């Protein structure tokens, strides 16, 4: 198991390096003078040269790449000062360190993602289990029908509707706003409740349908029948035997959905006008702030890699055949 984890971590480092190299060369080979972009409209040749030197753009591309990569591991010095360890460079636009901008915006995106994840897993798996347990009854039909209707919604459609009802016309709730969790968990949750629910709705529907169908499939498994033949109660068999098996396909899909979830967070940030990482990414690409775009990309890739390792560990936890082989 430990070997597996170490092998995965080594693999992750290699993949991160490849992603870094790929994005770097992709961006830096585009025919675009970044110094000119950074310099602005009234740019003198002297200014341009200084900027070019400050940004390190006068060096050969391989040197630039080397400096970029070592910067991530060991930090790097810029005229603005020392950029410590995971240094992703300096924003062309603001002149701030990229890492600082990401750290500034990340908590909001993380809150959105994790909150949405918790809500849709609870609701989705719960209602899926309910539908499977009550298979063929009215409850099952209502849940299944509702999940089909809900899954056809989109965040940018549902968002304004919910805002219109809960905020603008009735005033029951305030406009979504981010308060750091560390300050007051209560206001943190309240401020993000609407985006969470809207984002979760779309995913809930999908997970309801999936957990229902995998549960029904598992209930037909022979080992589930054996458990019943031993005299175990229906409830026990349902939650101990069938549920365990249906977790595997769910975790698999969840692993695939994680990147979709990040993308969902971007749309959600726009819909509710929240200043998260997604907004930062879109803004940076509009202003052609390449170091920032690249930094966010790498950061996102890192995040997804870590989550994938967690998914693999979850497999091993659920299924002894994975753990012991």
């Amino acid at each position, binding site marked *: 198991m430990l070997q597996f984890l170490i092998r995965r971590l080594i693999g992750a480092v290699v993949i991160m390096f490849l992603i870094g190299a790929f994005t770097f060369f992709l961006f830096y080979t585009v025919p675009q003078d970044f110094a000119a972009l950074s310099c602005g409209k009234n740019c003198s040749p002297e200014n341009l040269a200084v900027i070019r030197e400050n940004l390190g753009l006068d060096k050969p591309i391989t040197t630039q790449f080397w400096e970029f990569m070592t910067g991530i591991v060991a930090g790097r010095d810029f005229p603005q000062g020392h950029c410590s360890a995971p240094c992703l460079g300096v924003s062309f636009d603001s002149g701030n360190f990229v890492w600082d901008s990401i750290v500034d915006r990340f908590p909001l995106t993380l809150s959105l993602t994790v909150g949405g994840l918790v809500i849709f897993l609870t609701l989705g798996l719960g209602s899926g289990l309910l539908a499977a347990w009550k298979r*063929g009854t009215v409850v099952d039909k209502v849940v299944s029908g509702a999940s089909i209707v809900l899954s056809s919604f989109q965040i940018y459609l549902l968002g304004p509707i919910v805002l219109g009802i809960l905020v603008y016309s009735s005033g029951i709730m305030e406009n979504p706003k981010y308060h750091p969790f560390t300050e007051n968990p209560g206001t943190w949750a309240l401020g993000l409740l609407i985006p969470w629910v809207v984002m979760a709705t779309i995913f809930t529907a999908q997970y309801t349908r999936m957990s229902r169908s995998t549960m029904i499939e598992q209930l037909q*498994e*022979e*080992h*589930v*029948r*054996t*458990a*019943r*033949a*031993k*005299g*175990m*109660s*229906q409830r026990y068999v349902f939650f*101990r*035997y069938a549920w*365990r*098996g249906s977790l595997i396909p769910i975790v698999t899909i969840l692993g695939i959905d994680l990147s979709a979830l990040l993308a969902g967070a971007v749309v959600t940030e726009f819909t509710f006008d929240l200043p998260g990482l997604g907004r930062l990414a879109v803004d940076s690409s509009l202003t052609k702030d390449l170091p920032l775009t690249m930094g966010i990309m790498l950061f996102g890739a890192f995040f997804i890699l870590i989550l994938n390792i967690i998914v693999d560990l979850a497999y091993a936890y*659920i*299924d*002894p*055949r994975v753990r*012991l082989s």
Partner: protein
Amino acid sequence: MTTLTKTEGDKAPTGPGSFLSVRDLRVRFSTEDGIVKAVDGLSFDVERGKTLGIVGESGSGKSVTNLTVLGLHNPKSTTVEGEIILEGRDLVTASEKEMEKLRGNKVAMIFQDPLTALSPYYTVGRQIAEPFMKHTGASKREARERAIEMLTKVGIPQPRTRVDDYPHQFSGGMRQRAMIAMALVCDPDLLIADEPTTALDVTVQAQILDLLKDLQQEFGSAIIFITHDLGVISDMADDLLVMYSGRAVERGSVREVLREPKHPYTWGLLSSMPRLGGDTSQALNPIPGSPPSLLNPPSGCPFHPRCAFTDKVSGNRCSTERPALGEGRAAACHLTAEQKQTIFIDTIQPRLR
């Protein structure tokens, strides 16, 4: 068109020695294609400590019957009629709670493929201990000790360490042994074994069959042994029921049925089967055609479209009138006793050399 004669079921009282008695059992599934008559008027008895063999090909209803005995059929799409009397109690009308107390306790089951029939997610020990805890109220520790004891009994080497293994760490034969340990953990009065050795290799099968026989002597359980293999049944069973198309077509002691079979289907089965001591210069005698669809079973005798002796029965009784299966040693066939005797001696027996 079809005159369904009153089946034998309703008149037979439960025999004194019989511990399970099934009377006129009918099981129907509703499927998209229509109603499947999986079991159609089946009656049999199982005596304490004895083994009843049920033999039949796929779709003969042999497995469905035994799932129904344990109430493991899908209640929504299945209708069950008739009686399944276990020690005076009718299981067809029993509640789910009553059935739960029975399963794994009084009546246990062994399935065909031990790889899929054991959960991959829990240790073998836990899966054996579970029913013991549930039915005897034993503590976790007691149940674990019992699981180790059972594993020892069924011949798992190093049971103390293997008890914590998962099924995938066991070989095929060991998995089936674990399955037997699980079924016998509460010392059941009746053990239903549904093709328990079909997925196993022949040398392992021989071990498992002998193990079941030896354990039966020790535990005194009655066994219903379901198989398609006449060789296995000849080795295992005391009494034999031959099923075809959801019905019992022949019944008797194993010796009687296999040495002096009376039903054309049993004749067909025996003469289509190559044997180690058989004459290889003689071609096999297969039953022509294929088993009937249970959606639309043939009228009259279900075997008549494949039967070579329908012309010996006057009129077209074979295709119009369903032959009844009498009491005790019997075959559900319109041929007269003398006809059966003559055909068997003249035509069938020479094929069985």
